[in-house]
């Protein structure tokens, strides 16, 4: 092949071979084993298990609380990213580094700490419970734990995109008579929209599979506050390996679909970025017009 003769650099065969063998042993073989195990059941039986009363309730709790957590993070994450990029305030670098805390703090630590904070006698629970918000040991607690764990995603996907917005574009909009709110809604928001969606999807995908932080604060009542990963484990502990596998395969299928969606979103975000050019041209023209 002509491509081969153009390769000057060494190590292609060795590195590719090692990568493929390693991935096959660690990823493909185990996942293949699980799919093989699930095929013992057949599709009808898998759906039967996944759509049983307890499983269905677990899927609903997992989906709804993940959606809520990702939405909370989309809203506040946008504000945090904006504040961190555009404003200056004392301790900004410290705050910026702190955003990654949920990635660095083990989930079990987050779990017991949030459960203690939001319990009836905790720092936050003692003020929230008289107001009627019972957080710890309710589905609301799951949302709080998932919000903590997925907090960095939206902020970190938005920050570089906000940094890249050319101020000329905003100046152009302003000089054409737009108010600040119009500039945000019509110029800035369309530019960061795809990244916001990507961050939301990443947070959602991570929240669906989260286990460690949730189990301490959820209360884990079947049908009410039991998440799918916990149900998988309790099936495993009752030696119902096939039942656990059926739920795991459904979770895996959802993960694959989300991974696909995220890839498409990232591609869209990257291409969207290139389309800023006409606006830049407009900004340049607007500036010239101002000078004349």
């Amino acid at each position, binding site marked *: 092949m002509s491509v081969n003769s153009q390769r000057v650099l060494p190590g292609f065969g060795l590195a*590719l071979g090692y990568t493929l063998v390693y*991935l096959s042993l*660690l990823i493909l073989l185990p996942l293949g084993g699980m799919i093989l195990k699930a095929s013992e059941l057949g599709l009808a039986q898998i759906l039967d298990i996944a759509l049983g009363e307890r499983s269905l309730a677990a899927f609903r709790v997992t989906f709804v609380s993940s959606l809520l957590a990702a939405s909370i993070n989309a809203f506040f994450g946008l504000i945090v990213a904006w504040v961190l990029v555009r404003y200056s305030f004392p301790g900004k670098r410290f705050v910026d580094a*702190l955003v990654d805390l949920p990635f660095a703090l083990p989930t079990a630590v987050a779990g017991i*700490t949030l459960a203690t904070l939001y319990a009836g006698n905790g720092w936050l629970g003692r003020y929230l419970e008289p107001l009627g918000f019972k957080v710890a040991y309710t589905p609301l607690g799951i949302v709080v734990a998932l919000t903590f764990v997925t907090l960095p995603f939206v902020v970190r996907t938005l920050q570089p995109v906000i940094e890249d917005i050319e*101020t000329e574009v905003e100046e152009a909009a302003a000089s054409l008579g737009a108010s600040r709110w119009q500039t945000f809604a019509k110029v800035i928001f369309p530019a960061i929209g795809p990244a916001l969606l990507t961050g939301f999807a990443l947070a959602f995908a991570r929240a669906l599979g989260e*286990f460690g932080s949730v189990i301490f604060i959820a209360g884990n009542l079947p049908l009410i506050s039991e998440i799918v*990963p916990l149900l998988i484990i309790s099936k495993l502990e009752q030696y119902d390996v096939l039942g656990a596998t059926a739920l795991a395969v459904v979770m895996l299928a959802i993960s694959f679909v989300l991974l696909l969606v995220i890839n498409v979103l990232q591609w869209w975000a990257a291409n969207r970025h290139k389309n800023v050019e006409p606006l830049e041209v407009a900004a340049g023209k607007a500036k010239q017009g101002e000078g004349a």
Partner: protein
Amino acid sequence: MSHNKLTRATQEPAWVRRTLLAVGLGFLFFFLGLPLLAVFVEALAQGLPVYLEALQDPETRSAIWLTVVIALAVLPFNILFGVAAAWVIAKFDFKGKSLLITLIDLPFAVSPVVAGLIFILLFGAQGYFGPWLAANEYKVIFAVPGMIIATLFITFPFIARELIPLMQSQGKDEEEAAISLGASGWQMFWRVTLPNIKWGLLYGVILSNARAMGEFGAVSVVSGHIRGETNTLPLHVEILYNEYNAIGAFAAASVLALLALVTLVAKTVVEWRMRKETEMLNAELPGEKTQ
């Protein structure tokens, strides 16, 4: 006057700025600052001597030790895989490259519990290799080897994900120059490639190490929770907490929280170094942009 009008439209009014700042920082305070503070306050709730005694507990000690052992065992595998995968993906073109990248991303999307389960199905008593392992008296599930394998699954993408964009942005000119000047493959690697990627590699090591030491779900499924034997520190936190030993649980948790803080500091320092280095590079080579 026109300048005034411009700032009015390119900057938010002062009250909006103040509100956004308060909302953003308030959110971070309640969701990040307060939990971080609470870990240490709870751990020290009965004073320093009680805290230190809780850390002396032999089971906590052995959990710390096992956590370190697993993290160290995983590290060489992750470095080797990360460098090899990044080398192939960043410096060569071949069919199926995007599929390979997606495969590397997979553990980020798979639930840790599912990651643990797939190894039970492979190596557990009723698993595909279970009978053979039992006949030869190898213990993988409910033992340290299984915990290492599960941690490998969870942590292998971190270094590769860090190195791929870095090596792509560096291009292959320097390596090609080394080869055409007569360097051998390994000479090129040690003298050109490794010095170029050392900060990125360190960054990936920091991230994968934090995850390896803190992993809960996947390790929990394969560990069997045997006290003093297959308890890592995060698993030990759970046991102590469920026994209503709040001081012990938060003392162990505070060790992990300190580790998280060290990780954040190290990460920030390495990020700063990397930015400094690219700035220097850009200053040396005006007109030539890294991309």
